[in-house]
């Protein structure tokens, strides 16, 4: 169901990788409202990470309002979490853009040149 892997060599902690992968699937609609997530223990077994790692990832996702845990019944994707994730992504975009503007100004780029860069990046990614 959750068809992803976690790298133990990465500088990004395993729980962060798990969070991002699940978030990505929620925003893409691959994980639907109310869908059951694998238990923390099953996910730990499947991803070959420790149970504390998956517990931490789920706890963070729960704190962010994306999933809920029902004692004895498992973990579920919350209703309308897409909006929450989208809002978070927009916050991230704002932060990245501010950073880009600061560096662009420092490098003496004009608004047109910055916009051009944005357009190039946009076309580079699918």
């Amino acid at each position, binding site marked *: 169901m959750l068809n992803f892997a976690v790298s133990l060599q990465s500088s990004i*902690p395993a729980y962060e990788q798990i969070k991002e992968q699940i978030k990505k699937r929620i925003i893409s609609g691959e994980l639907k409202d109310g869908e059951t997530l694998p238990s923390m223990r*099953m996910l730990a077994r499947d991803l070959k990470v*420790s149970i504390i790692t998956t517990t931490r990832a789920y706890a963070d996702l729960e704190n962010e309002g994306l999933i809920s845990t029902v004692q004895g019944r498992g973990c579920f994707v919350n209703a309308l979490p897409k909006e929450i994730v989208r809002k978070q992504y927009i916050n991230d975009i704002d932060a990245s853009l501010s950073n880009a503007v600061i560096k662009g100004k420092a490098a003496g780029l004009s608004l047109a040149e910055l916009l051009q860069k944005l357009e190039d990046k946009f076309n580079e990614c699918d």
Partner: protein
Amino acid sequence: MNAIEVKNLRKSYKGLSLDVSFTIPSGYACGFIGRNGAGKTTTLKCLLGMTISDGGNVKILGKPLGDISVKEELGVLLDQPYYQEDWTAVDIEKALRPYYRRWSGDDWRKYLELFQLPERKKFKEFSRGMKMKLGMAAAMAHDAKLLLLDEPTGGLDPVVREEILDLMREYLLDESRTIFFSTHITSDLEKIADRIIFISNGKIVLDDEKDTLCEKYVLVRGGGYDQLMSCSLIGGLPSDVLTDKPTLEDIVVYFERGKVK
């Protein structure tokens, strides 16, 4: 609930002066690391009452050491399991079954099949890897609540090692179960351990969640530095030193060399 509670467990033995206190919460895998002779096996043997300690307090699954009802809840593999050389898996089941109220013949056969262990082969013809897998199968077939394993993956090839780890993961799907295992193979710890207890010269020097441990310290090298540093201390370092996230192996080595700040 705690699977293991140890308070001031003491033992003087062959030049080792053991004095340890630690607690292992149930439901997780806890790795026990330290150099040869640091006291890992002695600690495990004291927990099992196989070595008489000089003092201290031990509780296993909430019960004091020596409580006979605890034995049924334990799965123990010290080095490797010992059974009659001429026994087959079928004979071993016959011998073990009467001792355990919750023994499941179905589980036993399921695990034999899963680990590709032959039912009719004699135990003496088993490889070390097969013996370890058979020992794990026995522990799981009687639904042990606590596995105490002394170097379960030692001396095994990477493929069998991964199989043993898979078994441990399977075992921990049930949250009432706990694994306490000693090892030298830090990559196994990276893959499965939730907590790490690090013993050096008979004393516990680190006892923490694995993820926390690796986040607490930074490996600092270059510019005259070659040491582990607590994350809170790295603020004033010169810009040309290299800071890395330490592996568990780094943590063990730098602690043993006393290069920690």
